[in-house]
């Protein structure tokens, strides 16, 4: 996503990430991943729950789509950072607009099930 940051900027949208863990952890990740957009911390998963985000279980690790997603990520040069204290928490991507409009929502069903940057950009007129 950070590689496409300029495309989001061209569209005039704000970009922010929300993670678990604490501030030290977040700062390390920010430096390691070279991200310039806001990185917010939801240590108690309050926002994760409000966004309807799910947790995986041990069996998700065995799914073939997980292996494929790991291969894709590795081929794209991504590597896994620390897992943190909630390794089974799944993520999601949203586009919100003025007036609290939900313009796009993707709730991950398993590991590696991520919205594409094109989907996110497509939600912004």
């Amino acid at each position: 996503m950070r590689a496409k940051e300029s495309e989001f900027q061209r569209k005039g949208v704000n970009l922010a990430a929300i993670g678990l863990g604490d501030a030290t952890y977040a700062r390390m990740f920010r430096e390691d991943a070279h991200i310039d957009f806001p990185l917010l911390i939801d240590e108690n998963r309050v926002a994760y729950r409000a966004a309807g985000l799910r947790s995986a279980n041990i069996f998700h690790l065995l799914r073939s789509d997980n292996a494929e997603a790991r291969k894709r990520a590795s081929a794209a040069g991504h590597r896994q950072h620390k897992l943190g204290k909630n390794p089974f928490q799944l993520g999601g991507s949203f586009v919100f607009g003025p007036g609290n409009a939900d313009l796009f929502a993707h709730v991950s069903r398993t590991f590696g099930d991520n919205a594409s940057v094109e989907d996110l950009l497509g939600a912004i007129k």
Partner: protein
Amino acid sequence: MPQSFAESLAPMELPDADGRAVRLGSLWESRPAVMVFLRHY
């Protein structure tokens, strides 16, 4: 009417990596915002 995700999240305040409190709704008040919830860092 069920609340939208944006409505549910808008009043919440979360700290950023530098400890500054950010009200989530302020991010999409005047223009759209892409919000990515990370699975982990």
